[in-house]
């Protein structure tokens, strides 16, 4: 891992720390208040705030997770660092696409 990947991974970790807390708080709130899917969607659809929070979360996860997987593959598998990097970029793109699709599904009006 070079300094660029290190900075990206640490920066996304710092970003995710409060976002994870928000996410956990939302889960507790939704389950304890007994919100239905319709209740949740009524709050999230058209909301710039929720789209921003979860959109940012997904971007951070895609970057952070793919760098971590790259490092694990480069160290613990026979894969070369270059091939691990290519795999990680593909993984990151998949995570980003799936995550943003999910965010769009609950936030687009």
């Amino acid at each position, binding site marked *: *891992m*070079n*300094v*660029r*990947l*290190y*900075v990206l991974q*640490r920066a996304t970790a710092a970003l995710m720390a409060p976002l994870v807390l928000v996410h956990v708080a939302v889960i507790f709130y939704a389950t304890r208040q007994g919100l239905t899917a319709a209740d949740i969607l009524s709050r999230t659809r058209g909301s710039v705030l929720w789209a921003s929070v979860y959109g940012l979360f997904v971007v951070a996860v895609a970057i952070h997770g793919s760098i971590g997987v790259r490092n694990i593959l*480069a*160290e*613990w598998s026979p894969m070369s*660092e270059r091939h691990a990097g290519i795999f990680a970029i593909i993984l990151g793109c998949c995570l980003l696409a799936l995550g943003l699709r999910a965010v769009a599904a609950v936030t687009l009006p």
Partner: protein
Amino acid sequence: MTEKIAVSLWRGRAQGRYQLYEVQLRENQTVLDVVTFVQRHLDATLAYRFACRVGMCGSCAMTVNGRPRWTCRTHVAKVIDRGRLKIGPLENLPVIKDLATDMAPFFEKWQQAKGAFAPSRTRSDPIERIPPGGAARMAADAAIECINCGICYAACDTVRWNADYLGPAALNRAWSLVNDQRDAGNPARLAAVAASGGCHACHSHQSCQEHCPQALNPTASIAGLKRRTTLAYLRGELKA
């Protein structure tokens, strides 16, 4: 009846086997004494390396009962396990023969990490005064007593997993020079340790400081390099 030690010594190169010898247990005996006894009295073909015998040169490091140690300063009484000693070459380095490893990759990484002093003045310039109590000098001093024994390199999991990783000793050396006010080589040094295989590959397992016979803390030095290179990168002084 005199007590004997069952000593298993690695014989061969990458492929080989442990061979058992019996050596008399003596008071204040070091592991190096045991190996030397075997080579001089039991098997003259045994290959091993030592020089100073007093913990200064860093030549005699071996794996003793599973841990890398400087054998000249390791008393048998402290490491013997149920009357047995198992002594092998250092891990993470190619074996030349028996207990002697090839240290070339270890020292090549010192070169890669720009571990050589790069003078900022010539011999015609006046000698620069460096206050010994200054923060940078104290940071340099904290990392400077390395004897190049390779124990941290042998103990490091990241070295085991990543052949390109520069290793704790080379990075510790780089950190001592980064803090040396007389040195002018930091741009190239920071670029070298910030590249792939540099300080950011460290997982902070701290095996290096756990095993260092000089009680140095290469993990802290590497953390210092991580901070310094991160700042340099954010300021645009480093390209990655």
